């Protein structure tokens, strides 16, 4: 049987209909208005170079007494965790009574080229944590690290266990050499020193291209045809554009920090081998003795589940739990299902532990 039930007139009609939709959608485009970066009200409470510590306005009268500090990755911007009203992990945590802080790394420029992981972890993160400790008059805070921010949180907690009460990591790579880790495979033999010495800071566009290489045809073609279908709906179009803005809102990476992360974590797999040194101290995951919740996504193509789950074997905590989300790396924050599952699970886990 001929596998095309597409007669020319049907096809012409389909294309014309499609084009008409596009033409009508132009008007919707002009009416969408400003695309916000994050939707939950927040205030900047501390600044350190280009880094800003935000405090989200609590949504309950008496929030949980131990605040949660969200540590996001250097890649892309942290408003992914607060992208729209009905798709916000931050809002979910606030609704569950959490008191939430978030580190915004800003946009490094050429003058930040020599920032290294010591500056980020023992500098910015530590000072943000200390600021929160002073502000709330507490000894230890809860930390929620996301993706690369999760790896940073692991390092910070291992180096400063006295400052962390509970640690939550989400879609966080720990073993960088699992066979299904494409990113790691691509980076493995690159001359990182040459790359950083040549480029200085690593352009965000270059990283974007790398991520897009995983599904290039869907992400640079099909996705935009699909967009035409929702162009007559202002709300849906705006939501699409929010995501679009986030995807291409990629700060450059401070050169030295990138060099260290690419070489020590990706190439040498130093985090699980205990070889990573931040400043003059070695990161030993066994120092993480406080409760740990590890949230991973079962269909994560950037951080495969096995790359995260291995954490269990390396931390020194006797209170270690995993939460598997049936979805992908981005879906874990923004899918409708994740809104119902992830923030309540994290909040309850934290509340149970004081």
């Amino acid at each position, binding site marked *: *049987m*001929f*596998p*095309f*039930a*597409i*007669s*020319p*007139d049907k*096809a*012409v*009609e*389909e*294309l*014309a209909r499609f*084009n*008409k939709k*596009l*033409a*009508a959608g*132009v*008007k919707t485009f002009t009416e*969408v208005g400003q*695309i916000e970066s994050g939707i939950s009200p927040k205030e900047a409470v501390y600044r350190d170079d280009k880094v800003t510590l935000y405090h989200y306005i609590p949504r309950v009268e008496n929030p949980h007494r131990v605040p949660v500090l969200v540590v996001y990755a250097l890649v892309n911007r942290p408003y992914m965790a607060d992208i729209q009203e009905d798709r916000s992990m931050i809002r979910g945590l606030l609704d569950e009574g959490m008191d939430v802080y978030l580190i915004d790394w800003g946009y490094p420029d*050429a*003058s930040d*080229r*020599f920032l290294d992981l010591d*500056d980020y972890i023992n*500098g910015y993160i530590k000072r943000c944590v200390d600021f929160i400790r002073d502000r709330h008059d507490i000894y230890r805070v809860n930390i929620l690290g996301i993706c690369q921010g999760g790896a940073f949180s692991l390092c910070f907690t291992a180096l400063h266990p006295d400052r962390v009460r509970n640690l939550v990591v989400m879609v966080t790579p720990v073993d960088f050499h699992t066979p299904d880790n494409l990113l790691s495979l*691509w980076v*493995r*033999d*690159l*001359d990182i020193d*040459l*790359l950083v010495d*040549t480029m*200085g800071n690593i*352009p*965000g*566009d*270059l990283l974007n*291209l790398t991520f897009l290489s*995983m*599904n*290039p*045809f*869907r992400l*640079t*073609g*099909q996705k*935009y*045809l699909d*967009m*035409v279908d929702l162009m007559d709906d202002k709300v849906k179009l705006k939501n*699409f*554009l929010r995501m679009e*803005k986030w995807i*291409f809102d990629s700060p450059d990476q401070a050169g030295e920090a990138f060099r260290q992360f690419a070489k020590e974590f990706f190439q040498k797999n130093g985090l699980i081998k205990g070889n990573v040194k931040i400043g003059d101290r070695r990161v030993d995951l066994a120092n993480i003795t406080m409760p740990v919740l590890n949230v991973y996504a079962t269909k994560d193509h950037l951080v495969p589940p096995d790359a995260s789950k291995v954490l269990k074997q390396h931390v020194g905590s006797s209170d270690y739990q995993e939460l598997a989300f049936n979805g992908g790396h981005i879906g874990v924050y923004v899918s409708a299902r994740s809104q119902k599952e992830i923030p309540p699970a994290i909040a309850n886990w934290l509340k149970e532990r004081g």
Partner: protein
Amino acid sequence: MDNNPFSADWMSGWTSLQRKMWEDWSEATQSTFGNAWQTESPLNFFKNGMSQWPNMFMPQPVKSPEVMAMRHAMGSMEEFMRMGREVFKLFQKVSDGGTMAQEWTGQLDKAIQQAKEMFNQGSEAMYGLTGLGKVDEMASFWSRPMKAWNDFITTNPAFSNDTMRALLSGGQATEEALQRFLSVPGVGYTREKQEKVQEGLRLALEYRKANEDFQKLMMETSKRALDLLHRKLLEMGAEGKSLQTMRDLYVLWVDCNEEANAATVAGKEYNEINTRMVNAMMRVRRNMAEMVDGTMSAFNLPTRRELDSAYRQISLLKRRVSALEEIIGELKGRDATAEINTLRDDMEKLGVRRLREELAALRNQLEEALTAPPAESGAEAADKTAIKKTVRIGNAKPQPAAAASAQKGE
């Protein structure tokens, strides 16, 4: 419109639909932007394809998500339309033969084979990768998903720029000329500069070779995607299934490309070639930067090297300031009472109390000795008196003998 699926008359229906679409389009653009966006006639609009759309968004900030999304949408739409055109051609051929039902598999084989032949012409011909795009028009819809991706890469400022694209252009003749230049030894005052330029060209050739290898691999991937599509269509035919819309076909084709791409990028060959290409590109860029630095330095202008040096110094100073601030913070926040108590403890540990007690015990012993029965010479008595006086200067109270003994036993 003629409803005969594969007659040549379908073009008239297509034209009337185009006209209708043009009217819709005019209405939409006029209501949104006024008359400024009108093109001269529907014919021009279709002649120019979708290129009018991105221009419409030019006045807005270039990187706003609306503009970027709309531009990508326009690009995808254009590819989709072209795909439609090519599919019509395929249908037309099948229809003209009048053997659609019987020989469609043969026609499909032929179409796939022709598409593969196009991929054999190389990336420059297929995608206009170098920006020349000299035979871009001949590329059919088969290359469309890959072209969209290539456009993405070549317009990415981080990955490519005019200089890097220029390095990729040129054919065999250029390469031979370059090789001849490279073999000229450097002499005289400009020797160093010549060697630097020669090194740059050598690196550029390496990069071009690596890029060609990369493109070849991607071409092979596209051919594998064609094979996949071929296989899936045959399977659908065998199972009595069919594609209902152009969109279905587009999605199937994208799926095939993704499947082929996933297999390629997970392989060792891709990793080796991609790594070689990126490393080669970085060597070229570094060489360029060094030459630019040399020129800037000759004009007594700041160089990248000097700026980096300054930034490094600033970073080091910042770290030192942070360390000092931390120390100051610790000093400010320290509890003085606790410090005093600690010092007291330290003093105690040094044994001051014990020394005092020992001293007191010695005094007691002396007191006892002085109160013992006198069986001594005049000189000894004078000495004891002197000791007694000395001890009393210390203002120590005499202690009973029992207490002194107890202290000794500590």
